[in-house]
């Protein structure tokens, strides 16, 4: 058994980003991402078939770019890692097919790992920061996921505390942007519009925070009702012939989303007695989410960790590092017959 850190290439194609990353142990060597976001813009959201076609086209150029940036040869790899789920089925399968052939072609083992746990693993690659301590609560927020996890050990003990029961937070941003006549993707657009708005101007509902809901859905999220409430409010103004204060609506909507995300995450820290919170997912790009999380975490005595943004959005490096950790912990590779699973539970960190 060699003590050398494993050199792993990770392939991520669960949504609209083709991510190829290469790590040596916990050291990031390259992280290349090709996004098909522009192709989805005119449809107002990710179109699975458009995303899957784009993955096929971006795959080889992105692998080449990642290998060149890392300054390694593919033959030197110790393993090939791939996102096996959760995600869009057709998109996942492009990466899975490619990863399997790459592994066979190189004669190297395959590690088929969980996308959401990969987001937690991204923190290991954060430069110049102390090592993550476990257990930690993790809040993962993107266009496809809104999940609250309790991570006791990255490589073999992750529990789902709660998740969205309808729309993901990023999806709510996209839908509300449309209501306000703003383009896709909604996150940055709402952020821009909200800059001059009053977050307290309109009190929009905070989903699943009423006492009766907290019994059953203490750590679950719901953003569908919020989106409808915003649309109703805007339509009422329009019906009354009043101008829509876009900045105030955007700021108030964003505040409702951020409030419920941070409140539930910190409640989880409190309830589990874990004074550590990790953020991940593309919605972490939202400045207000980062600011409110930082402020309230400090007040609650919770240590907050936020990886750099290019490690928060979907990427292959987080998949590679999760596999590298599994290898270091002595876990066997996945079977070449491992099946993509669009609803893979977080408890399954690697598909056997």
């Amino acid at each position: 058994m060699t003590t050398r850190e494993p050199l792993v290439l990770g392939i991520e194609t669960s949504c609209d980003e083709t991510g190829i990353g290469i790590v040596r142990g916990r050291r990031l060597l390259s992280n290349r991402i090709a996004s098909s976001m522009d192709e989805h813009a005119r449809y107002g959201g990710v179109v699975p078939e458009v995303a899957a076609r784009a993955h096929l086209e971006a795959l080889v150029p992105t692998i080449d770019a990642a290998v060149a940036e890392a300054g390694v040869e593919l033959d030197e790899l110790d393993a090939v890692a791939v996102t096996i789920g959760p995600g869009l089925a057709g998109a996942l399968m492009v990466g899975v097919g490619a990863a399997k052939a790459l592994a066979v072609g190189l004669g190297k083992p395959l590690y088929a790992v969980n996308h959401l746990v990969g987001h937690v693993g991204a923190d290991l690659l954060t430069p110049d920061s102390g090592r993550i301590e476990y257990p930690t609560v993790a809040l993962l927020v993107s266009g496809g996921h809104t999940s609250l996890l309790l991570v006791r050990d990255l490589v073999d003990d992750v529990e789902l505390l709660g998740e969205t029961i309808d729309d993901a937070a990023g999806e709510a941003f996209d839908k509300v942007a449309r209501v306000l006549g703003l383009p896709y993707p909604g996150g940055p657009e709402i952020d821009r519009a909200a800059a001059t708005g009053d977050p307290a101007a309109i009190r929009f509902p905070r989903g699943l925070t009423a006492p009766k809901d907290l019994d059953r859905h203490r750590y679950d999220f719901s953003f569908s009702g919020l989106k409808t409430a915003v649309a109703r409010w805007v339509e009422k103004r329009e019906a009354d012939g009043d101008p829509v204060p876009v900045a105030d609506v955007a700021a108030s909507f964003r505040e409702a989303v951020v409030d419920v995300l941070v409140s539930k995450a910190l409640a989880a820290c409190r309830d589990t007695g874990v004074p550590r919170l990790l953020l991940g997912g593309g919605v972490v790009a939202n400045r207000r989410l980062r600011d409110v999380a930082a402020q309230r975490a400090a007040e609650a005595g919770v240590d907050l960790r936020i990886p750099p943004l290019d490690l928060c959005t979907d990427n292959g490096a987080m998949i590679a590092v999760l596999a590298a950790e599994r290898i270091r912990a002595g876990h066997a590779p996945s079977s070449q017959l491992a099946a993509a699973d669009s609803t893979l539970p977080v408890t399954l960190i690697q598909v056997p």
Partner: protein
Amino acid sequence: MILAIDSSIGTSVALCDPSGRLASARSEAGHLTHAEVVGALIGGVLEDAGVGPAEVSAVASGMGPGPFTGLRIGIAAARAFGVARRVPVVPVLSHDAIAAARLESPIAGELVVVTDARRREVAWTRYSGVDPSGPVRIGGPELAPRDVFEVLDAERLDAMDVPAEFVARLAALTLAGRRAGEADEPVYLRAPDVTLSSRKRVTP
């Protein structure tokens, strides 16, 4: 050796020598299992032939026509294997391989290869015959409604699988400069299903 991969119907993989002689072949008929089996099939044909991955000098990739989700998996695998070994990936029209297999034996007139395209449609390609460059395509590939599509003036071949051996053989002809190359893009024949979004009112 040439490694051929096709997932336009089921998943078929073959290994041929540079002259096109078959060394080994494996396939899975399932229409939904391409991503599961493709790696094991590749590993299997290499093992059957007693050949290491480094001995593969080119990859032949069946480009369809075929249903999107499955078709892409074989192409992704072919391209990834090509990157792994830094060898060329030669695109081949999957219907051409079906035609090449049929045209091994004499045929009276023209040939129309037909495959299921789902949604009550078929994909078809028409061939005048075969010459030293392989099957001679004179129409298609195109889609047609399954219920009304008829072939009256040629032999109709409804194919249920793609022989990867012939994907490899046609690639061998292209590599030898004897057959024109195909475009390096999947033959989906359909645009993605999408509807332009519009703002929906929620107030009753």
